[in-house]
């Protein structure tokens, strides 16, 4: 006769439900990044849960449309933590780009690790995007990375300046600059990663109408 799994041996129904829920969530967790754009997917193929990706995206260059591509297709619960002076989320644009706003939540914080500590201590969100934090120390970076590894989350850290190889980041598995060029196409320059190179994507691929 098959024996009952240890976690269900407890006669307390409530605890059994908790155990079942934990089992369920561990089975259903979504892993890597997927955008549906071949060039991007190839570039980010090595990124796995527990990794931190650092982005260099100066304001005005529309570069955030690239990380946005990874928040379109069947994403797990995700959070975008932003801090832009006087700027708020223009949600309609995100929806038009195909982002599922029932799965992507927003929080405004200048000092995310200090202000939103519980968010990093729990694995509620499998994708965490930290967009241009005002305060983000090396200690904060170490903490976020440790938690991401422990909880199998993918963290995007977006800087409001172009990244340079002169100043490294030991915690990031991939460091990349993105921007939109005058001709319209989007460019990406890998600073740290499996392959250092520059990649361009046609504008049409990012602006295709959502069906």
């Amino acid at each position, binding site marked *: 006769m098959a024996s009952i799994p240890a976690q269900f041996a407890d006669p307390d129904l409530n605890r059994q*439900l908790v155990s079942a829920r934990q089992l369920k969530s561990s089975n259903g967790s979504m892993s890597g990044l997927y955008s549906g754009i071949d060039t991007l997917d190839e570039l980010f193929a090595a990124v796995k849960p527990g990794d931190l990706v650092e982005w260099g995206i100066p304001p005005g260059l529309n570069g955030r449309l690239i990380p946005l591509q990874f928040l379109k297709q069947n994403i797990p619960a995700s959070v975008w933590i932003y801090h832009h002076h006087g700027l708020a989320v223009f949600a309609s644009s995100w929806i038009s780009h195909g982002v599922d706003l029932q799965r992507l939540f927003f929080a405004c914080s200048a000092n995310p690790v200090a202000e939103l500590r519980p968010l990093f201590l729990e694995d509620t969100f499998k994708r965490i995007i930290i967009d241009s934090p005002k305060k983000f120390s090396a200690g904060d970076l170490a903490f976020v990375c440790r938690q991401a590894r422990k909880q199998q989350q993918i963290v995007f850290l977006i800087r409001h300046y172009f990244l340079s190889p002169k100043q490294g980041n030991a915690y990031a598995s991939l460091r990349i600059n993105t921007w939109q060029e005058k001709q319209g196409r989007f460019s990406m320059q890998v600073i740290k990663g499996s392959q250092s190179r520059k990649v361009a994507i046609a504008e049409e691929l990012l602006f295709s109408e959502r069906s």
Partner: protein
Amino acid sequence: MSEAKLNIIQLDEFDGFPAYVAIYAGQAVNNPFVLSPVAMQWSEQIVLNRVQDCEAFWITQKNKMQCDYHALFAPVLAHHYGEDFIAVFACHPWQCLLYLAYLIDQKLSGVYFLQSRLHQNIYRSLDWQTWFANQEMLAAHFEFVQAKGFRADRFRSRQAQLTRFINRTGFSGPFQLPGMSYQVFSRRFGTWLASVRRWTMQQSSELRGFPWISVDQPLRPLVVRDLEYPVNQWQVVELLLREDLQRLCELFMQDEQEHINRMVWLIRLFNHQLVEVELSFRHPYSLYRDQPGFKTALYQARYIYDDLMRDLQARDSDLDLPETMPLLDWQIEVCESFSLPPVIWDLFGHDAAEIAHEDILNLQNKLPVTLDSYCYTRSFFPEQCFSVSPLCEKTDDDPGQLQWISQSLHRPLFYYQSVDEIEVPVAGQFTFLERCANDWWEADDTLATNRDYYILKNPRGAASWVYRDFNGRWFKQGEYC
């Protein structure tokens, strides 16, 4: 058959979450806190609940259970009051009571939403007899709250005056009266009856003089902590607080149905000053389910403790006091709580897409800032084409949604909520994007609602989202980040 069913569903659709509910239990009501911790006992058998206080919570539960509001509330009310209850949801308590009186008279039972077209039509056809039915009890409540200028005898004489007017003119119900404004009605039949008429008609949830008398929570569990020595380290405070929360949990008899909205933490400082702070939860919080760690409550306490210490340091910076003010003793009292039956907190609350709504709500309770969720709205005007939606609200597929969801493809991801006027840009720096118009048919100056949107690039290539209004002035509204 299926067509007839579809018609009924369409008739039952309603927009917006109701603010109040009146519940008729058919027997004396022992527990008025059923759908919200804010309740009023209207009569022995009727209670009112202000459900708008828990709006986000109920919307989340509806999405979690993938049902409509009827299927959500009916089992909860049946759990508390048996099968013969009547519940009326509406935007104002008076409207709930009015329609409830009609339903009691019709010997009906179940859950009714006054926002639905079907019930709204019936409501608008109610007669004067129903309208006057609850006014005796209303007068009693006015007297209880000692409403300024209210006199029951004068109120009754005004009612008689109105009755004579109705008999003379033959209007069959309050909605049949010709467009008589509040002022005109007030001059003729007194302010109190005019208020009642306004509550009957109004679309908003403002009470506007309705005598709302909140019922005190009958059981307000309280734990007191007397310290043998002052403590000023959060680590120690946290440890002791955890014990206190465990004691609170015991006071609730380990009742898993009990959910808390608000607690008061009364602290005595080292200088014997008493400070009262509030531990409030955005979504009903269960101590039972958070034990033994009580992480959510302790996070809230930590934020409050940090704020308090910061304020005290700023105030007493010139005094020779310890860096953090030691605490001498404290007490924690549960001020608002209500009971939720097991059907609501079922742990298998995941929807098919694996979004753990329960976890997100719990996390939201632990954070000092809100987690925002957005959805599109049916408007072409940029500021009005989306709105903040309650956390975890599920939007149904709308057959005509494509035009709304695809309209902002070339708009930026972030925008300025308050726009600044900019200098008229030089030709060649900007590219035309689109022309937008607000609801021009509602505006006084129809042309003033027109805007021409452009992408403006500065010499360094940074793009902004700008518009020119009809007067030729330019404004910056967003950045292409």
